[in-house]
């Protein structure tokens, strides 16, 4: 780290420990502070070390969380740090490196269910799925819950269950006392977003283990009414916009118009996903299907068909991230974080009229490849956030594996696990189920399985590097508000 970076960022200097000091601000002294902001927010000094407690997703002081992260990145002696910019205009282009600073050492995935859809399905609550997934991940890593005390937790908010103190409640449910509680508040992108955030905490020397966990049980628990973003509440719902189905229909209709893609192109991707699901014992929908089946599936919101859509489910998922030293001492071979990028509120073009066919993944990919130092040819597996089939295709374009609107590429490429560019080797959330925002963790977990060569019948031969992506929120008039991507590898 250079002195220059120290000046540019808000770097904590030596101060006397004050649990409520936030870089010189007392949150409660700021206007509009909520009663609990002081307790739930900010950077605290614990035992001479900075520790982050995340803000509630609706807190007006959420941007402090970013400042806190900046400070930690600076302390972590990272190569360069993204300068703060809250406002507009083009940010200064800088890169930071988390390459090889942390590894995934444990993965946990509970069975998914849709309560009553299949006989003998378990009837479990969100809390039980959280604890269940965590236990599987701990066992996989060869750790116990006691090892997590005074380590890190990253808990992901779900769409209708979480309350504002969610990370703390998750710690209480899973049964340990973390030193740091990060929150994933980026919807479906969260499990890939917090992968980078957690790695930064580890690289900063704050903790050397982080449990990342998410679960949801929309079929067995009646959730509270979901709070909607103001654009959705005021300018979409009054016009009968039916949530993401409708908004992604806009994207798909424009994509078809501009690229000339047809249901044959989308169907091919859907069939590939189902084929992989048929080889995945943990998948929910395994019956092989054809392009004709896809074409015959009913229209939900033209041109979005049933087989374009993700499958909501109950379930829980978890993974454990460790420092390099810790990772090498555990049971399973480490899967290294090599590249990572995140963009929130991205916009391809002016915000009032963005190009909805370019997602933030395009910029995440630049960060990822620059950080990892690998090329697209090195990547042997793409596990892409798949709430809808056309979104998988847009991300392949965004990641730079083909040109824009490249029909020929989608026609000629073999996307199966033994093909040219394996995608969605687990079958994707479309076939494995989406327990709310926990769903996206499937892609991290599947990439780890592939890199450990534990993927059984769908194992990609000789794989060294894979990509997992996450997407969340569909913004007004464009596409995803939350985007993140990571390159993982089985060697540093």
């Amino acid at each position, binding site marked *: 780290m250079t002195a220059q970076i120290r000046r540019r960022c808000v770097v904590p200097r030596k101060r006397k420990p004050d649990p409520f000091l936030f870089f010189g601000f007392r949150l409660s002294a700021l206007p509009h502070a909520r009663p609990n902001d002081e307790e739930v927010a900010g950077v605290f000094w614990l035992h001479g070390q900075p520790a982050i407690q995340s803000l509630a997703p609706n807190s007006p002081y959420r941007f402090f969380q970013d400042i806190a992260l900046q400070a930690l990145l600076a302390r972590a002696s990272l190569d360069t740090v993204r300068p703060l910019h809250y*406002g*507009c*205009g083009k940010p200064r282009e800088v890169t930071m490196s988390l390459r090889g600073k942390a590894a995934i050492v444990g993965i946990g995935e509970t069975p998914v269910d849709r309560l009553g859809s299949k006989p003998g399905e378990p009837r479990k609550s969100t809390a039980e799925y959280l604890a269940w997934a965590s236990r599987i991940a701990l066992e996989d890593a060869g750790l116990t819950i006691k090892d997590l005390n005074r380590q890190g937790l990253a808990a992901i908010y779900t769409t209708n269950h979480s309350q504002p103190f969610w990370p703390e409640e998750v710690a209480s449910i899973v049964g340990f006392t973390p030193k740091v509680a990060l929150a994933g508040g980026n919807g479906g992108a969260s499990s890939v977003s917090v992968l980078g955030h957690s790695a930064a905490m580890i690289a900063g020397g704050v903790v050397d283990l982080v449990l990342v966990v998410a679960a949801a049980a929309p079929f067995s628990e009646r959730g509270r*009414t979901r709070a909607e973003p*103001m*654009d959705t*509440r*005021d*300018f*979409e*719902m*009054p*016009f*009968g*916009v*039916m*949530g993401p*189905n*409708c908004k992604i*229909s*806009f*994207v798909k*209709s*424009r994509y078809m*118009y501009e690229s000339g893609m047809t249901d044959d192109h989308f169907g091919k991707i859907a069939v590939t996903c189902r084929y992989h699901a048929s080889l995945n014992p943990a998948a929910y929908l395994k019956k092989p299907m054809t392009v004709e089946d896809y074409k015959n599936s*009913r*229209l*939900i*919101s*033209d*041109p*979005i068909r049933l087989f374009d859509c993700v499958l909501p489910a109950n379930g829980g998922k978890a993974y454990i991230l460790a420092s390099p030293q810790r990772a090498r001492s555990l049971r399973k071979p480490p899967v290294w974080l090599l590249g990572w990028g995140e963009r929130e509120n991205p*916009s391809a073009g*002016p*915000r*009032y*009229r*963005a190009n*909805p066919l370019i997602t933030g993944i395009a910029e995440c990919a630049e960060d990822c490849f620059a950080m990892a130092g690998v090329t697209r040819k090195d990547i042997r597996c793409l596990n892409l956030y798949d709430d809808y089939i056309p979104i998988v295709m847009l991300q392949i374009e965004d990641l730079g594996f083909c040109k824009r609107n490249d029909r020929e590429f989608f026609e000629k490429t073999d996307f199966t696990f033994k093909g040219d560019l394996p995608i969605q080797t687990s079958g994707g959330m479309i076939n494995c189920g989406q327990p709310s925002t926990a769903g996206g963790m499937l892609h991290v977990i599947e990439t780890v399985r592939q890199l450990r060569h534990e993927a059984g019948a769908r194992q990609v031969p000789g794989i060294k590097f894979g990509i997992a992506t996450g997407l969340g929120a569909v913004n*007004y*008039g464009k596409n995803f508000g939350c985007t993140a991507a990571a390159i993982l590898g089985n060697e540093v």
Partner: protein
Amino acid sequence: MAEAAREIPKPLPQITPLNQPFWEGAKDGKLVMQRCKDCRAWVWCPRPVCGECGSDSLEWTPLSGRGKVFAFTVIREVVGHALRGFARDIPYVTAWIDLDEGPRFCSNIIGCPIESVRIGMDVQVTFEDTGQGVTLPKFKPV
């Protein structure tokens, strides 16, 4: 069944100090949006600052109400408890309309058979009173 469906209300916008000028304009039969006085960029949806230059010097500016369909969908199923009130309208068209002045607006295409809606179609704003104190700007073919 049909009568029961009629009683379910449709969601209405929450009128806030930030978006109030838009809804007042709609009530008067005008389509207005914020525009940045500094960089002249449009700001939509309503925001406290310009999304392009960061200026907070924004003014509510009238638009012609003409535009082209950028993308559209035919809603065929209700998804979500909050939107059950729309069941009686199904099938209907929601669309992104690129207004001639620049901003993209999300609304319904009405006043024509749903089969006739096309991307690139010229449309013109028309105002629909919900009878509940809110007027919604919708679009019809020119």
